């Protein structure tokens, strides 16, 4: 006989009220980054050069632009989850921990929006 409520059993969210969301998100974004990361590494390795024109030509190509947006979105998500765990492990004191977690989220959001803005700006030739 379980002491948990029927609703609790169905939702399966456990005491943290999050279920396996964090764990699962980390794995799936990792799998996506396996593909996107290898594509990006290969692209960087074979890019003709790193002059400004080379960079614009690479970032501005339509397929590259789409893949780059996918890369930074998945990267920001995966990185955010990872840094969250590190903060939860090493930063002690409730207030300091909470502030660190919020700063990390803000920083990741800022980087993500800045990266997408740059990719779209170059892609549209604006």
């Amino acid at each position: 006989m379980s002491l948990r409520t029927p609703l609790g059993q169905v939702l399966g969210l456990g005491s943290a009220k999050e279920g396996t969301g964090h764990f699962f998100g980390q794995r799936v974004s990792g799998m996506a980054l396996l593909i996107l990361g290898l594509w990006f590494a290969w692209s960087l390795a074979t890019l003709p050069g790193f002059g400004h024109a080379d960079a614009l030509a690479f970032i501005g190509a339509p397929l590259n632009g789409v893949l780059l947006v996918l890369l930074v979105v998945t990267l920001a998500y995966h990185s955010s989850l990872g840094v969250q765990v590190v903060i939860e492990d090493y930063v002690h004191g409730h207030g300091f921990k909470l502030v660190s977690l919020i700063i990390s989220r803000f920083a990741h959001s800022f980087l993500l929006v800045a990266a997408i803005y740059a990719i779209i700006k170059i892609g549209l030739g604006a």
Partner: protein
Amino acid sequence: MSNNGRPLSPHISIYRWPITMTTSILHRATGIAMSVGFIVLTGWLLDAAIGAETYNAMISYLDTMLGKALLVGWSFAFFFHLSNGVRHLVWDSGRGFEKAQANASAWFVLILAVVLTALFWWVRV
């Protein structure tokens, strides 16, 4: 209530350093390194969008000894985190947990990461 004769629970420093500990710590360290690298990646994209002058200034920072060392470091971090990440996915499926298997896969991902990093720079240079 002192009872000094009793055995203490052995702490980390008691054990011979296992290779799996190296890979475990490296996974987290390379992850953090790449989170910092995300700032540089965003900077690269943003500077390219802003203009040639800003972009060239950034490239000149990366073209120093320190910059190159960081880039090599980030490439190793990427290939290690990727290889060891796949190792974690295999573990998540419930396989490869035996001590001998874990030790072997630890050496495998370490060597693979070094090889992939070398391959990356061999193609690049």
